[in-house]
């Protein structure tokens, strides 16, 4: 046997670690995030979903480079043409000859902006409210829970439609605002639950005994433990927001026609049901986005759960 390879010594490694080093085994210090990343990378569906999302959202982000035409370019000599490679009309053209491929790509951009902004703002706001409600309890907690009760007594779509009718519809940012104003309650409830149970833990007590202030305990000690559920919920919210925006736009209470969003495109296709490509392509894009988001969300859920170490990392 040759000389055992000397692995970099982990800080504070005990004699047990020394003996493994002597046995020729490498010891590596991994953080919880390393474990989570490894678990995520081994989740095949999640990686598939992530790849799909990168492709679809990438197409949306670089819409101005990818789309062969502008989304509003009218060509009356080429109306309702089926999908073809001639003139790069991969998804055909609509009733006034606009290139449908370009419209879907620009639609992805609108929808992904709505989805990502709604998920980000509602996660942040939900996190703040949920943290305060769960940690302090009191009137904020009461208000949050009563508000949730109210929201649960009505179909979500009806509330959103009424809100859209109130705020006036049309602009993309109004729709985004309405969705975000509704979505934060779900995340706040999740965060509240985790804070409620964690504030009784010994390590919080220890932090208090060491003289840490409320803000420090909430954001340094408890918050990192709630990040898992927040990230998972935030990811899934992207998909739900995109579908909900599409449903609102479809019913005429969301984004209005000159701006192409995926829901607007499906709604517009209703006037020409015989031209299947008008309905299929934007709808299929929504399904693919949501499917990928759900896969990624599932993968993150499995990866971020520290109690789960089934996958050898």
């Amino acid at each position, binding site marked *: 046997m040759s000389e055992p390879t000397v692995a970099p010594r982990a800080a504070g490694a005990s004699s047990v670690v020394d003996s493994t080093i002597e046995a020729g085994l490498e010891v590596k210090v991994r953080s919880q995030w390393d474990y989570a990343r490894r678990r995520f990378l081994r989740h095949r569906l999640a990686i598939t979903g992530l790849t799909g999302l990168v492709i679809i959202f990438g197409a949306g982000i670089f819409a101005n480079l990818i789309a062969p035409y502008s989304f509003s370019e009218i060509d009356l000599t080429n109306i309702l043409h089926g999908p073809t490679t001639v003139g790069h009309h991969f998804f055909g053209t609509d009733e006034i000859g606009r290139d449908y491929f370009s419209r879907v790509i620009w639609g992805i951009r609108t929808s992904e902006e709505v989805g990502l902004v709604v998920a980000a703002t509602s996660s942040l706001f939900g996190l703040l409210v949920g943290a305060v409600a769960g940690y302090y309890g009191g009137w904020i907690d009461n208000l949050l829970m009563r508000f949730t009760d109210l929201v649960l007594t*009505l179909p979500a779509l*009806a509330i959103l439609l*009424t809100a859209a009718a109130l705020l006036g519809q049309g602009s993309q940012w109004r729709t985004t605002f309405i969705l975000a104003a509704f979505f934060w309650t779900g995340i706040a409830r999740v965060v509240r639950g985790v804070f409620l149970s964690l504030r009784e833990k010994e390590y919080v007590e220890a932090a208090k005994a060491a003289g840490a202030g409320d803000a420090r305990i909430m954001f340094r000690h408890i918050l990192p433990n709630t990040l898992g559920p927040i990230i998972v919920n935030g990811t899934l919210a992207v998909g739900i927001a995109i579908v909900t925006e599409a449903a609102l736009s*479809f*019913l005429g209470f969301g984004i209005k026609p000159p701006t192409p969003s995926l829901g607007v495109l499906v709604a517009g296709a209703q006037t020409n*049901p*015989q031209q299947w490509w008008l309905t299929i392509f934007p709808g299929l894009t929504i399904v693919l986005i949501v499917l990928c988001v*759900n896969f990624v969300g599932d993968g993150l859920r499995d990866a971020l759960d520290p109690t789960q170490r089934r996958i050898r990392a």
Partner: protein
Amino acid sequence: MLTFIARRVLYSIPVLFVSTFLSFTFVSLAGNPTALLRQNPRIPLNTIHNIEIQNHLNRSIPVRYWFWLQDVFTHKLGKSLLTFQPIWPDITRTLGHTAQVICISESLAILLGVAVGIFSAIRQYSVFDYLFTSVSFLGYAMPTFWLALLLQILFVDIYLKWNVRIFYTSGLNNPHHGTWSLDRLQHIALPVMTLCIISFALYSRYMRASMLDVINSDYVRTARAKGLAEWRVIMRHIVRNALIPIVTVAALNLGGLLGGAIVTETVFSLDGIGYYFIQRLQAADLYAVMAYLVVTSVVIIVFNLIADVLYGFLDPRIRYE
């Protein structure tokens, strides 16, 4: 149990008042019901003022809410501000149609979902399991309105191509056909299918997960160790316990179903309560929209209560004091 029900009902009453007050404020701020009348040059301003005063539209919102509440209790949800027709007959008619669609699609979805969930759990990781897992993932990701549109386009195409009328693609029924006529069923088949596919995805997933929770428990091993036949272990010991959470899922799904009904009925121009809501909302018909919100929230509250009570009956570990 009775005190539990009484307490829940008493708790729902203030929730209902607050939620109706909030939605009343929102809806009143949203649109002026006299805007349409004002556009018509033949209607003198005097008449419009009279209408406003008659309907208390010149008063503040809390006062209007108070008058509206009186209307709700004394005149069955009052009259529409646009058509001056009573709202109640419209609500009962459309709610009946929606109830028919939802009841059929839910029964089908629960039956199929539970059956598929049971088989998927027993044969976990089999081809069958993978197939239906994919189907339910697709069902989750599918926007209701798109699924409805696809079905509509498909059956319109079938009709145009082969001239066979399997299902109608819009409307409720042809004249002179009743609630349970074949003609009505042909009309509501596609809306039922749409809602059924969406809910099926939900139920089959929950049933599978719930079965897998139970399947590894100690008492199931005991039942097997006693030498019971496998089908008996499954049907008597596993399935019965796995079904309990489905009750809650079904009740909580009702809100989503009524939302799905808005979209589905709009696509198929079905005279249900969701379609009614969309039309009235587009017309800014304040009191009709309010009537919808009140009726749906009462329905949802009642069904949630029924689910909780059933849950207590089914699971003896749950006791409401």
